[in-house]
């Protein structure tokens, strides 16, 4: 029997910097500014930090680079990189380290200047047995998944487009989102095709941005200015690295991570007030709604139709505007948790989900490879 981490640690500060375009600033500068903002929110100083968790697409040993830049000598650190879901995994690892007393104040940090530096960057090695065929990853892999989902379940390009439209409608309520303005299903269908069946508007933004979160043990969480948001459940799963090794392109490892995260949190799908699902591509949202049990396998397309996940719909999904319309600097996972915290604190302005108490923030990494589900709640949910 494992000891439950439910509510063992809490987020007491978040920060973001340079989301959108930040010319002239490095990935590390955007990361560091985010950390300083998050620490200020938490009423803490850099000198208080003894746990460092970081991943970027430009640092091979990010925990050391971040600790050195900020002037931290951590008692515990992790630079584990499982792609865009690294940060959900960092939150789980931070909770473990805090609970075990290996550190007292943990930061989770990310930064990227990809947009200003010339586009999507990755330190990923070429995939053996795939690279020679020149897939334009990550989009090629997600296009293959979308094509198979359409074939197996009758999902349509209109269904995919509904995801992008809902994300834009949320973004239009978020002054910090990068993409604003009207967007129709027709606009998505007519946009330039990138990898069939995914058009440019089925793909996430390419932005700059830094992000950070501060976590402490629950028994210290109330010593800080902001209302704590507790990590109630978290679990990770990965079944493949290369898309050609994914067992079923319509079923992600979120079918493993989701149930374990729900079990730890002691809540069910019906209890969740909002979902942040890593939407690097429109197919992601549909897959994760299915795999996390919010609808049956294959029904994700019809599920998102008619504005169900848009503002005013039954189920608030990606309320910031998501990776599709708010921010996507290459590794987006930390932003899903920051939006969850913002909503659970009741600080989401025009996009605030009424009485939000429980939020699910799901991270995805690689080519639908790593899946990490986190569930967060305010004090009433403890």
């Amino acid at each position, binding site marked *: 029997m494992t000891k439950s981490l439910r509510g063992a640690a809490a987020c007491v500060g978040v920060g973001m910097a340079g989301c959108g375009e930040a010319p002239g600033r490095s990935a590390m500068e955007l990361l560091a500014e985010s950390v300083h903002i998050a620490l200020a929110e938490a009423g803490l100083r850099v000198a208080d930090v003894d746990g460092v968790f970081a991943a970027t697409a430009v640092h091979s040993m990010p925990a050391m680079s971040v600790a050195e830049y900020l002037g931290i000598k951590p008692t515990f650190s992790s630079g584990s990189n499982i792609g865009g879901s690294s940060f959900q995994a960092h939150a789980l690892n931070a909770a473990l380290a805090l609970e075990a007393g290996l550190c007292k104040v943990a930061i989770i940090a990310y930064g990227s200047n990809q947009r200003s530096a010339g586009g999507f960057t990755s330190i990923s090695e070429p995939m053996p047995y795939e690279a020679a065929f020149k897939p334009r990853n990550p989009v090629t892999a997600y296009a293959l998944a979308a094509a198979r989902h359409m074939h197996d379940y009758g999902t349509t390009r209109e269904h995919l487009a509904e995801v992008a439209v809902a994300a834009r409608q949320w973004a239009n309520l978020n002054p910090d989102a990068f993409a604003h303005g009207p967007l129709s299903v027709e606009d998505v269908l007519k946009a330039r095709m990138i990898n069939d069946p995914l058009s440019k508007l089925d793909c996430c933004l390419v932005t700059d941005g830094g992000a950070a979160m501060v976590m402490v043990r629950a028994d210290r969480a109330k010593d800080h200015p902001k209302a704590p948001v507790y990590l109630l459940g978290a679990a990770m799963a990965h079944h493949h690295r290369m898309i*050609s090794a994914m067992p079923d*392109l319509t079923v992600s490892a979120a079918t493993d991570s989701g149930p374990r995260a729900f079990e730890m949190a002691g809540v069910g799908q019906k209890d969740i007030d909002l979902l942040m699902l890593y939407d690097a591509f429109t197919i992601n949202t549909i897959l994760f709604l299915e795999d996390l049990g919010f609808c049956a396998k294959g029904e994700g397309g019809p599920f998102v139709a008619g504005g169900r996940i848009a503002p005013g719909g039954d189920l608030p999904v990606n309320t910031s505007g998501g990776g599709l319309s708010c921010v996507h600097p290459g590794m987006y996972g930390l932003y899903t948790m920051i939006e969850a915290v913002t909503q659970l604190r009741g600080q989401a302005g025009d996009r605030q989900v009424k009485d939000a108490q429980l939020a699910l923030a799901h991270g995805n990494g690689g080519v639908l490879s790593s899946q990490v589900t986190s569930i967060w709640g305010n004090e009433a949910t403890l």
Partner: protein
Amino acid sequence: MTDTKILGPEAQFRTFLAEGKFMIQRSKSTGRHVFYPRLAVPGSGETDLEWTEASGDGVVYSTTVVRNRPEKGGDFNIALIDLAEGPRLMSRVVDIEPTAVAIGMKVRARVGDLDGAPQVLFAPV
């Protein structure tokens, strides 16, 4: 001392390819076929892998068109192919318009040249 004459499975596979042969691995005890080449059967760990020539028969599991400017070579296909022996791999379906490749299409492998190197490509049966 390591015998440098003994190649690992990846180098052996590429040596076969250079000879025009599409070889995959098969576990003697379980009969299970393995691709990509490994030291042991993934998951179960049997080390009794031997090389066998692939039948070359396959079915398109999924497909996409990588849209590419004409000056950069134009559009091309990327597909995942389920081999008759079981394993799945990434390749391109050639000899046909990339948009005409469809899930469920029967294809056959051939070793062809891609950017100056031998690769396993597929064409409609």
